[in-house]
């Protein structure tokens, strides 16, 4: 049996229309279509519909670009935002929560500054590590834990994966979804060690620059946080700077680049 006798699959017909076939296969499909009018008609209709789409929308690319899409202008605003975010962070760190909150109102960057994500993460951490019976929503044993949280938070099922922190004696308990901003939830993974100390990893999708690891204390718990791609991460646990930074570093390395678009 030669190729010429093998029925042409639908996939191949689509690939033919879209110019994805090699010249050799193209010739074979040409010959097939010459003797199979039903397939030829479908191919013709796909081409006609593609043409309708191009006629309907092709002109948009020739319209003048509105000023709000001017790259130089957007880049200038970008610098202002970055500066504003930095200023808001400085205020937040120097003056504590209240001043940080007001500072945020005065100099609001497009997304909340990392400090706010960290505060939210610490709040969630304190709330859920204290839970005896329901610290998590979905156990680590559930296969869908990672893809579910990844899809809900990042939009892609494979971007976010709870890091393996067993080198620090930490076992993944599971995770939960939390409200963060309208339409933009946060993921919280929880870990526990043999001493029953609990650590959490909090992740939200929010634009912002990549940052190195930062450390912030809130009473007897602390957070290490960073930005990577579109996601801000916060690792929270007992306030032990050296240990938490090591755990944060390990999580950072395992999560690096998975969430970049």
């Amino acid at each position, binding site marked *: 049996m030669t190729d010429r006798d093998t029925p042409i699959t639908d*996939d191949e017909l689509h690939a033919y229309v879209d110019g994805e076939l090699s010249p050799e296969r193209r010739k074979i499909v040409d010959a097939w279509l010459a003797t199979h009018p039903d397939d030829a008609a479908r191919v013709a209709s796909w081409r006609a*519909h593609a043409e309708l789409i191009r*006629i309907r929308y092709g002109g*948009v690319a020739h319209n003048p670009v509105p000023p709000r899409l001017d*790259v130089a202008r957007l*880049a200038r605003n970008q610098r202002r935002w970055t500066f504003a975010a930095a200023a808001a962070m400085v205020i937040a760190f120097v003056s504590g929560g209240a001043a940080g909150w007001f500072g945020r109102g005065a100099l609001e960057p497009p997304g909340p500054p990392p400090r706010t994500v960290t505060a939210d993460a610490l709040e969630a951490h304190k709330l859920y590590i204290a839970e005896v019976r329901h610290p998590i929503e979905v156990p680590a044993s559930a296969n869908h834990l990672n893809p579910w949280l990844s899809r809900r938070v990042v939009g892609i099922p494979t971007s976010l994966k709870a890091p393996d922190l067993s080198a620090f004696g930490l076992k993944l308990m599971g995770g939960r979804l939390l409200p963060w901003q309208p339409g933009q939830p946060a993921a919280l993974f929880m870990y526990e060690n043999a001493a029953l100390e609990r650590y959490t990893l909090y992740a939200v999708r929010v634009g912002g*620059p990549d940052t190195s690891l930062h450390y912030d204390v809130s009473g007897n718990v602390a957070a290490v946080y960073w930005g990577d791609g579109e996601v801000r991460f916060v690792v929270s646990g007992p306030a032990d700077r050296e240990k938490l930074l090591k755990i944060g570093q390990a999580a950072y390395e395992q999560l690096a680049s998975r969430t970049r678009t």
Partner: protein
Amino acid sequence: MSGFRQDVEASIPALRRYARALTRDGDVADDLVQDTLVRALRAEHLFHGGDVRSWLYTILTNLNRNRLRSLSRRPSLMPIDDNDAVELAGPEAGGRDIERALATLVDEQRAALLLVVLEGLTYREVAQVQGVPIGTVMSRLARARAQVKSYLDGQRPQLRRVK
């Protein structure tokens, strides 16, 4: 202006075209493009070579998915004014038909079809943009075309057949 920014700027007309076809609303489309540009400029340091335009399509496609998700609780996502149907003649009629046909598509299928036929991306590029295997792109494309054909052939929107 840096080479990166020049490439971003040169992609804007195509991004607007894609966004317009994806959302079928000029203002929403330009909002999406603006958001895409802001994020791309902010993440310039993350871009290590490759095709800037494909990368921008990726950002825009993801932003649109988020937008649809946040809208999904509203009763009507894309209201289509049926009063338009009265004017059947004229050069506009075909354009409105294809617009309606696209509106009946599942979001991922619409994006795959538009990236291929309107933006001229290869299957491989679409797979990267959508973050799925090429086989998935091809099945999205096949379903999209079958649905558009069925809609334009005057049938009711096709129910998914289970084989």
